[in-house]
Protein backbone atom coordinates (compact mmCIF):
# COMPACT_ATOMS: atom_id res chain seq x y z
CA UNK A 1 0.00 0.00 0.00
CA UNK A 2 1.48 3.34 -0.96
CA UNK A 3 1.32 6.49 1.08
CA UNK A 4 -1.31 7.94 -1.27
CA UNK A 5 -3.58 4.92 -0.88
CA UNK A 6 -3.26 5.13 2.86
CA UNK A 7 -4.06 8.83 2.92
CA UNK A 8 -7.13 8.20 0.77
CA UNK A 9 -8.42 5.76 3.35
CA UNK A 10 -7.52 7.83 6.38
CA UNK A 11 -8.29 11.38 5.23
CA UNK A 12 -12.10 11.17 5.51
CA UNK A 13 -12.09 10.34 9.20
CA UNK A 14 -8.90 11.80 10.61
CA UNK A 15 -10.81 14.88 11.79
CA UNK A 16 -13.33 12.67 13.55
CA UNK A 17 -10.53 10.86 15.34
CA UNK A 18 -9.09 14.20 16.38
CA UNK A 19 -12.41 15.54 17.63
CA UNK A 20 -13.13 12.41 19.65
CA UNK A 21 -9.65 12.58 21.15
CA UNK A 22 -10.16 16.22 21.99
CA UNK A 23 -13.53 15.51 23.55
CA UNK A 24 -11.93 12.99 25.89
CA UNK A 25 -8.54 14.59 26.53
CA UNK A 26 -9.79 18.22 26.33
CA UNK A 27 -6.33 19.62 25.63
CA UNK A 28 -5.64 20.52 22.01
CA UNK A 29 -2.02 19.34 22.12
CA UNK A 30 -2.84 16.05 23.79
CA UNK A 31 -5.53 15.41 21.21
CA UNK A 32 -3.13 16.19 18.37
CA UNK A 33 -0.54 13.82 19.81
CA UNK A 34 -3.14 11.11 20.25
CA UNK A 35 -4.37 11.50 16.68
CA UNK A 36 -0.83 11.36 15.39
CA UNK A 37 -0.19 8.24 17.41
CA UNK A 38 -3.28 6.54 16.08
CA UNK A 39 -2.56 7.43 12.46
CA UNK A 40 0.97 6.09 12.87
CA UNK A 41 -0.35 2.87 14.36
CA UNK A 42 -2.66 2.50 11.37
CA UNK A 43 0.21 3.25 9.02
CA UNK A 44 2.42 0.63 10.64
CA UNK A 45 -0.35 -1.92 10.33
CA UNK A 46 -1.25 -0.86 6.82
CA UNK A 47 -0.74 -4.40 5.54
CA UNK A 48 -3.65 -5.53 7.68
CA UNK A 49 -5.90 -2.58 6.90
CA UNK A 50 -7.45 -4.24 3.87
CA UNK A 51 -8.65 -7.09 6.05
CA UNK A 52 -10.71 -4.81 8.26
CA UNK A 53 -14.29 -4.48 7.17
CA UNK A 54 -14.72 -0.99 8.48
CA UNK A 55 -11.49 0.93 8.97
CA UNK A 56 -13.28 4.00 10.22
CA UNK A 57 -15.15 2.18 12.99
CA UNK A 58 -11.98 0.33 13.89
CA UNK A 59 -10.06 3.59 14.15
CA UNK A 60 -12.72 5.19 16.30
CA UNK A 61 -12.64 2.22 18.68
CA UNK A 62 -8.87 2.49 18.77
CA UNK A 63 -9.10 6.21 19.52
CA UNK A 64 -11.57 5.65 22.33
CA UNK A 65 -9.42 2.96 23.96
CA UNK A 66 -6.22 4.92 23.49
CA UNK A 67 -7.67 8.07 25.08
CA UNK A 68 -9.27 6.21 27.98
CA UNK A 69 -5.93 4.47 28.66
CA UNK A 70 -4.22 7.80 28.59
CA UNK A 71 -6.72 9.30 31.02
CA UNK A 72 -6.37 6.31 33.30
CA UNK A 73 -2.58 6.60 33.42
CA UNK A 74 -2.84 10.31 34.12
CA UNK A 75 -5.28 9.65 36.94
CA UNK A 76 -2.96 7.00 38.36
CA UNK A 77 -0.13 9.50 38.43
CA UNK A 78 -2.38 12.02 40.10
CA UNK A 79 -1.85 14.35 37.20
CA UNK A 80 -4.49 16.24 35.32
CA UNK A 81 -4.35 17.06 31.70
CA UNK A 82 -4.30 20.82 31.62
CA UNK A 83 -5.44 22.59 28.57
CA UNK A 84 -4.70 26.05 27.37
CA UNK A 85 -7.08 26.40 24.47
CA UNK A 86 -7.50 30.11 24.83
CA UNK A 87 -10.25 31.53 22.72
CA UNK A 88 -9.97 34.50 20.51
CA UNK A 89 -12.20 37.03 22.24
CA UNK A 90 -11.87 39.79 19.70
CA UNK A 91 -15.47 39.66 18.55
CA UNK A 92 -16.86 43.12 18.63
CA UNK A 93 -20.56 42.47 18.54
CA UNK A 94 -22.10 42.10 21.95
CA UNK A 95 -24.64 39.61 20.66
CA UNK A 96 -21.96 37.39 19.22
CA UNK A 97 -20.08 37.42 22.50
CA UNK A 98 -23.18 36.33 24.36
CA UNK A 99 -23.90 33.61 21.88
CA UNK A 100 -20.33 32.39 21.96
CA UNK A 101 -20.46 32.40 25.70
CA UNK A 102 -23.51 30.19 25.92
CA UNK A 103 -22.04 27.92 23.27
CA UNK A 104 -18.87 27.71 25.36
CA UNK A 105 -20.99 26.69 28.28
CA UNK A 106 -22.09 23.63 26.34
CA UNK A 107 -18.49 22.55 25.94
CA UNK A 108 -17.76 23.16 29.62
CA UNK A 109 -20.80 21.18 30.69
CA UNK A 110 -19.87 18.36 28.36
CA UNK A 111 -16.47 18.12 30.05
CA UNK A 112 -18.20 17.18 33.28
CA UNK A 113 -20.23 14.34 31.79
CA UNK A 114 -19.17 10.74 32.40
CA UNK A 115 -16.75 9.45 29.78
CA UNK A 116 -19.22 7.08 28.18
CA UNK A 117 -21.88 9.74 27.70
CA UNK A 118 -19.25 12.09 26.33
CA UNK A 119 -18.21 9.54 23.74
CA UNK A 120 -21.77 8.74 22.74
CA UNK A 121 -22.82 12.38 22.48
CA UNK A 122 -19.72 13.09 20.44
CA UNK A 123 -20.34 10.21 18.05
CA UNK A 124 -24.05 10.84 17.68
CA UNK A 125 -24.70 14.56 17.92
CA UNK A 126 -21.46 15.85 16.50
CA UNK A 127 -20.27 13.15 14.11
CA UNK A 128 -23.79 11.94 13.30
CA UNK A 129 -23.06 8.25 13.23
CA UNK A 130 -25.78 5.65 12.92
CA UNK A 131 -26.73 3.74 16.06
CA UNK A 132 -25.56 0.51 14.45
CA UNK A 133 -22.15 2.06 13.74
CA UNK A 134 -21.84 3.37 17.28
CA UNK A 135 -22.73 -0.02 18.71
CA UNK A 136 -19.96 -1.56 16.60
CA UNK A 137 -17.44 1.05 17.72
CA UNK A 138 -18.23 0.81 21.39
CA UNK A 139 -19.23 -2.84 21.51
CA UNK A 140 -22.53 -1.92 23.23
CA UNK A 141 -26.08 -2.76 22.27
CA UNK A 142 -28.23 -0.06 20.78
CA UNK A 143 -30.66 0.19 23.67
CA UNK A 144 -27.84 0.91 26.10
CA UNK A 145 -26.54 3.55 23.73
CA UNK A 146 -29.94 5.21 23.48
CA UNK A 147 -30.27 5.26 27.26
CA UNK A 148 -26.82 6.81 27.74
CA UNK A 149 -27.50 9.29 24.96
CA UNK A 150 -30.80 10.34 26.46
CA UNK A 151 -29.18 10.79 29.89
CA UNK A 152 -26.40 12.87 28.43
CA UNK A 153 -28.75 15.09 26.45
CA UNK A 154 -31.00 15.64 29.45
CA UNK A 155 -28.13 16.52 31.77
CA UNK A 156 -26.78 18.90 29.19
CA UNK A 157 -30.13 20.61 28.79
CA UNK A 158 -30.81 20.85 32.52
CA UNK A 159 -27.42 22.32 33.32
CA UNK A 160 -27.70 24.77 30.46
CA UNK A 161 -31.14 25.88 31.62
CA UNK A 162 -29.70 26.47 35.06
CA UNK A 163 -26.87 28.65 33.82
CA UNK A 164 -29.31 30.58 31.67
CA UNK A 165 -31.84 31.21 34.40
CA UNK A 166 -29.28 32.10 37.03
CA UNK A 167 -27.72 34.51 34.62
CA UNK A 168 -24.19 33.31 35.19
CA UNK A 169 -23.06 35.11 32.07
Amino acid at each position, binding site marked *: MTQADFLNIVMPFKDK*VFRLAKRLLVSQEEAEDA*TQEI*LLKLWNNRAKIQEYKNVEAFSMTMTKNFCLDKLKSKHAQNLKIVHSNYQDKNVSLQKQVELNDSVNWVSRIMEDLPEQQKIILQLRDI*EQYDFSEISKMLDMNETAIRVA*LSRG*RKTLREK*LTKTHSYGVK
Partner: protein
Amino acid sequence: MVLNSIEKLIEKYDNGETTLQEEQQLKNYFSKETVAPHLEVYKSMFQYFSQSHEEQFTKEVPLTPRKTIKLYKWISVAAVAVLMFGIYIQTSGPTEVERREALLAYNQTMEVFNLVSSKLNQGSESMNALNMVSTNFTRGADNIAYLGEFSKTTDKFLKTN
Protein backbone atom coordinates in the same frame (compact mmCIF):
# COMPACT_ATOMS: atom_id res chain seq x y z
CA MET B 1 -42.08 24.41 10.44
CA VAL B 2 -44.82 24.17 13.00
CA LEU B 3 -43.66 24.65 16.57
CA ASN B 4 -45.78 21.72 17.63
CA SER B 5 -43.89 19.21 15.56
CA ILE B 6 -40.58 20.64 16.76
CA GLU B 7 -41.66 20.15 20.35
CA LYS B 8 -42.55 16.57 19.60
CA LEU B 9 -39.21 16.03 17.95
CA ILE B 10 -37.46 17.60 20.94
CA GLU B 11 -39.16 15.18 23.27
CA LYS B 12 -38.08 12.26 21.11
CA TYR B 13 -34.62 13.77 20.93
CA ASP B 14 -34.32 13.94 24.70
CA ASN B 15 -35.25 10.27 24.91
CA GLY B 16 -32.62 9.34 22.35
CA GLU B 17 -35.20 8.09 19.89
CA THR B 18 -34.78 10.44 16.96
CA THR B 19 -33.34 9.30 13.65
CA LEU B 20 -30.52 11.12 11.95
CA GLN B 21 -32.99 12.80 9.56
CA GLU B 22 -35.08 14.11 12.41
CA GLU B 23 -32.00 15.42 14.14
CA GLN B 24 -31.06 17.18 10.92
CA GLN B 25 -34.51 18.82 10.93
CA LEU B 26 -33.94 20.03 14.47
CA LYS B 27 -30.51 21.31 13.51
CA ASN B 28 -31.99 23.27 10.63
CA TYR B 29 -34.67 24.75 12.83
CA PHE B 30 -32.23 25.86 15.52
CA SER B 31 -29.84 27.40 13.04
CA LYS B 32 -32.42 30.10 12.44
CA GLU B 33 -32.08 33.52 14.00
CA THR B 34 -35.16 33.36 16.19
CA VAL B 35 -36.51 30.35 17.99
CA ALA B 36 -39.27 29.92 20.52
CA PRO B 37 -37.97 31.39 23.82
CA HIS B 38 -38.51 28.23 25.85
CA LEU B 39 -36.36 26.32 23.37
CA GLU B 40 -33.48 28.81 23.51
CA VAL B 41 -31.36 26.26 25.39
CA TYR B 42 -31.38 23.86 22.45
CA LYS B 43 -30.19 26.57 20.13
CA SER B 44 -26.83 26.84 21.85
CA MET B 45 -26.60 23.05 22.07
CA PHE B 46 -27.15 22.53 18.36
CA GLN B 47 -24.97 25.47 17.51
CA TYR B 48 -22.19 24.00 19.57
CA PHE B 49 -22.62 20.63 17.88
CA SER B 50 -22.32 22.03 14.38
CA GLN B 51 -19.46 24.28 15.46
CA SER B 52 -17.41 21.44 16.85
CA HIS B 53 -18.07 19.44 13.73
CA GLU B 54 -16.03 22.02 11.84
CA GLU B 55 -12.86 21.49 13.80
CA GLN B 56 -10.05 19.93 11.82
CA PHE B 57 -6.85 18.11 12.48
CA THR B 58 -4.09 20.15 10.86
CA LYS B 59 -0.92 18.63 12.24
CA GLU B 60 1.38 16.83 9.82
CA VAL B 61 1.93 13.13 10.40
CA PRO B 62 5.34 11.78 9.44
CA LEU B 63 4.46 8.59 7.64
CA THR B 64 7.90 7.11 6.99
CA PRO B 65 9.26 5.89 10.29
CA ARG B 66 9.31 2.32 9.01
CA LYS B 67 11.83 2.91 6.20
CA THR B 68 14.83 3.63 8.42
CA ILE B 69 14.10 0.58 10.53
CA LYS B 70 14.00 -1.51 7.36
CA LEU B 71 17.36 -0.11 6.24
CA TYR B 72 18.96 -1.00 9.58
CA LYS B 73 17.53 -4.47 9.29
CA TRP B 74 19.13 -5.01 5.91
CA ILE B 75 22.45 -3.60 7.09
CA SER B 76 22.51 -6.07 9.96
CA VAL B 77 21.63 -8.91 7.60
CA ALA B 78 24.51 -7.93 5.32
CA ALA B 79 26.91 -7.72 8.28
CA VAL B 80 25.93 -11.20 9.45
CA ALA B 81 26.36 -12.55 5.93
CA VAL B 82 29.88 -11.08 5.67
CA LEU B 83 30.77 -12.52 9.07
CA MET B 84 29.53 -15.98 8.15
CA PHE B 85 31.45 -15.86 4.88
CA GLY B 86 34.64 -14.98 6.75
CA ILE B 87 34.19 -17.89 9.16
CA TYR B 88 33.46 -20.25 6.27
CA ILE B 89 36.63 -19.20 4.45
CA GLN B 90 38.71 -19.79 7.58
CA THR B 91 37.33 -23.19 8.53
CA SER B 92 37.13 -24.81 5.12
CA GLY B 93 40.73 -26.00 4.37
CA PRO B 94 42.34 -27.05 1.06
CA THR B 95 40.52 -29.39 -1.29
CA GLU B 96 41.18 -33.15 -1.70
CA VAL B 97 43.50 -32.70 -4.73
CA GLU B 98 45.55 -30.05 -2.96
CA ARG B 99 45.89 -32.29 0.07
CA ARG B 100 47.17 -35.19 -2.08
CA GLU B 101 49.70 -32.96 -3.82
CA ALA B 102 50.93 -31.66 -0.49
CA LEU B 103 51.35 -35.22 0.80
CA LEU B 104 53.30 -36.17 -2.34
CA ALA B 105 55.62 -33.19 -1.97
CA TYR B 106 56.14 -34.01 1.70
CA ASN B 107 56.99 -37.63 0.91
CA GLN B 108 59.44 -36.58 -1.79
CA THR B 109 61.26 -34.15 0.45
CA MET B 110 61.35 -36.74 3.23
CA GLU B 111 62.93 -39.22 0.79
CA VAL B 112 65.56 -36.70 -0.21
CA PHE B 113 66.29 -35.95 3.44
CA ASN B 114 66.59 -39.64 4.22
CA LEU B 115 69.04 -40.07 1.35
CA VAL B 116 71.11 -37.14 2.51
CA SER B 117 71.18 -38.39 6.08
CA SER B 118 72.22 -41.91 5.05
CA LYS B 119 75.07 -40.47 2.98
CA LEU B 120 75.98 -38.28 5.88
CA ASN B 121 76.14 -41.36 8.15
CA GLN B 122 78.48 -43.07 5.70
CA GLY B 123 80.69 -39.99 5.70
CA SER B 124 80.74 -39.93 9.47
CA GLU B 125 81.84 -43.61 9.50
CA SER B 126 84.89 -42.77 7.39
CA MET B 127 85.48 -39.88 9.77
CA ASN B 128 85.62 -42.47 12.55
CA ALA B 129 88.46 -44.23 10.71
CA LEU B 130 90.28 -40.91 10.51
CA ASN B 131 89.74 -40.43 14.23
CA MET B 132 91.31 -43.80 14.84
CA VAL B 133 94.28 -42.79 12.74
CA SER B 134 94.70 -39.58 14.64
CA THR B 135 94.56 -41.31 18.04
CA ASN B 136 97.14 -43.81 16.88
CA PHE B 137 99.14 -40.93 15.60
CA THR B 138 99.11 -39.14 18.96
CA ARG B 139 100.02 -42.42 20.61
CA GLY B 140 102.97 -42.59 18.19
CA ALA B 141 103.87 -39.01 19.08
CA ASP B 142 103.92 -39.92 22.77
CA ASN B 143 106.29 -42.76 21.98
CA ILE B 144 108.51 -40.32 20.12
CA ALA B 145 108.52 -38.15 23.25
CA TYR B 146 109.81 -41.16 25.15
CA LEU B 147 112.47 -41.56 22.50
CA GLY B 148 113.45 -37.90 22.92
CA GLU B 149 113.78 -38.38 26.67
CA PHE B 150 115.89 -41.46 26.01
CA SER B 151 118.19 -39.57 23.65
CA LYS B 152 118.65 -36.76 26.26
CA THR B 153 119.81 -39.18 28.86
CA THR B 154 122.16 -40.86 26.40
CA ASP B 155 123.58 -37.40 25.57
CA LYS B 156 124.19 -36.73 29.28
CA PHE B 157 125.75 -40.11 29.58
CA LEU B 158 128.07 -39.42 26.67
CA LYS B 159 129.10 -36.01 28.09
CA THR B 160 130.14 -37.44 31.46
CA ASN B 161 132.30 -39.97 29.72
